[in-house]
């Protein structure tokens, strides 16, 4: 019996490897290893850190798309809110740490900062759902995808300009969350901030996945994304789930913004780059596919790092964009999206 189950597992694994999704994942890992051998370990480190953070933003985007059916173009602004919050929370903490470096805040300050950003991000998400999207939903669901898309673009413009008006257009950044020597792993030096950023991304992605798979509320979110009417029939309140989804996806983006503050200082349009990256990922992995978004994030990150490495840093948006065009022509449902219906069909 066990033997049979094992055989069954290997058969399925083999089948998955032969599918487009499996082939792409395996190709990505192989290419990543080849490039690492060719150019050195820092390429792998860069890929993993960028990929982890992109995964956070892209997961939120995929979730918003899958559950609320909104093609979100204001998602980068929640990243911006995260980095702005982190800047204003961490600057005073940094003052205390500088005054007495032995303080316990040196360890917990960054964590407090990121949690604060997460909370502010979640609140911003709830506010935009209640004040903007719910209003539209109650008035008309006709042409929903197009109308909500336009609404998100407007929201994005509004938030970028509000930032400029209230906080100014200058760069508000920090030198780093943790001082101290970089960590040395197999002759590759990784700054402490980067290492923490990756660990954080891994923890958050795992926690999120567990939440979506094993909790009642997580299941309800998935249920709404798969069939809204079905969810209503079994007694799931749509308003609550949609609010929660917005809170979750926006706080994911805010976590990314806060933990990358040492790389991307807060300024009005800081969210554009992560937004584009996240859209590349979501198109690559299939609309509304949350798990696929995690794998897609590492692929896009690798592509970006390789472009910078071999072609030049000015090209790091051109090559992924070209890839997206190719994918949209040949496989519009994305690499992992064979069973996911297009959002417009719903």
């Amino acid at each position: 019996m066990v033997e049979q189950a094992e055989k069954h597992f290997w058969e399925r694994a083999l089948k998955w490897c032969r599918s487009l999704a499996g082939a792409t994942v395996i190709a990505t890992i192989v290419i990543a290893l080849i490039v690492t051998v060719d150019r050195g370990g820092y390429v792998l480190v860069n890929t993993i850190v960028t990929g982890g953070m992109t995964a956070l933003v892209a997961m939120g985007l995929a979730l918003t798309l899958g559950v609320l059916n909104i093609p979100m173009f204001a998602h980068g602004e929640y990243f911006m809110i995260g980095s702005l919050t982190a800047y204003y929370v961490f600057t005073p903490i940094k003052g205390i740490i500088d005054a007495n470096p032995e303080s316990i805040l040196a360890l917990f300050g960054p964590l407090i900062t990121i949690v604060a950003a997460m909370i502010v991000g979640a609140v911003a998400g709830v506010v935009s759902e209640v004040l903007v999207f719910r209003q539209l939903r109650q008035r008309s669901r006709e042409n929903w995808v197009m109308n909500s898309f336009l609404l998100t673009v407007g929201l994005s413009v509004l938030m970028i300009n509000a930032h400029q008006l209230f906080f100014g257009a200058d760069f508000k950044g920090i030198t780093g969350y943790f001082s101290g020597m970089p960590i040395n792993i197999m002759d590759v030096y990784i700054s402490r901030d980067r290492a923490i950023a990756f660990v954080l991304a891994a923890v958050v992605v795992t926690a999120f996945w567990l939440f979506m798979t094993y909790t009642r509320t997580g299941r309800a979110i998935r249920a709404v994304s798969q069939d809204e009417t079905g969810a209503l029939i079994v007694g799931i309140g749509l308003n609550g789930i949609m609010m929660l989804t917005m809170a979750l996806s926006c706080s994911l983006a805010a976590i990314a913004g806060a933990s990358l503050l040492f790389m991307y200082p807060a300024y009005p349009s800081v969210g554009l780059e992560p937004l584009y990256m996240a859209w590349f990922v979501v198109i690559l992995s299939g609309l509304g596919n949350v798990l696929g978004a995690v794998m897609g994030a590492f692929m896009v990150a690798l592509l970006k790092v390789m472009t910078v490495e071999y072609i030049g840093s000015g090209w790091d948006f051109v090559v992924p964009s070209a890839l997206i065009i190719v994918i949209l022509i040949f496989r519009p449902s994305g690499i992992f999206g064979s069973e996911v219906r297009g959002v417009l069909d719903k």
Partner: protein
Amino acid sequence: MLLEVNNLNAGYGFLQILRDVSLNVDQGEYVCLVGPNGAGKSTTLKTIAGLLAPMSGEILFKGEPIGGLPGNKVARMGISFVSEEMNLFVNMTVNENLAMGAYTINDKQKQKARLDFVYDLFPRLVERRNQLAGTMSGGERKMLAIGRGLMSDPTLLLVDEPSFGLAPLLTENVFNSLDVLVKQGMTIMLVEQNVTKTLAVTDRGYVLENGRIELEGRSDDLATNAHVRKVFLGV
């Protein structure tokens, strides 16, 4: 009366479908709603289930007004709707779908009891329990939809077109399981295209035409009624 619908008017946007529909269902009854295509049978069920807001009229369930409540509130009051499209969660397994059906039940023991009850009624689902709902055959999906509707231990089951798109043998299966449920005391309101079969199994029926209730009465009387025979059976 378990369910009482008085002078219900409903429709989509500016298009009115139901005109002054009045009907009632008593505890333990097996009632059917028959009528030609486009008569408004599904619209009636959707309005009762809270998926569609009524334009006017009254819907009372256990004496409380439920007209205009959202679907999730209606479901929590004890009405389960098995829709024609089934509205299953296609990327979840059979087990997960059934677990979602018990979303309103917090008691773990009771959830388990409901699951056993449903697996007892549809042994076929046990074999398929780890399969994704989207990959099952039409008959199995229908069973799953009914099973999911039963998970919440409803007082009233609304079933829309259980035979739609099914082979005759599978239709027979579905009807048989509904019979079993009725014998156990479940109250069912059934909407069906298959008029002969439906009138043969149910207690009482309503005939809906162009959004109005044209006839009502005991099913065996309806089955021999000249008007019904002319319109539906062509004899």
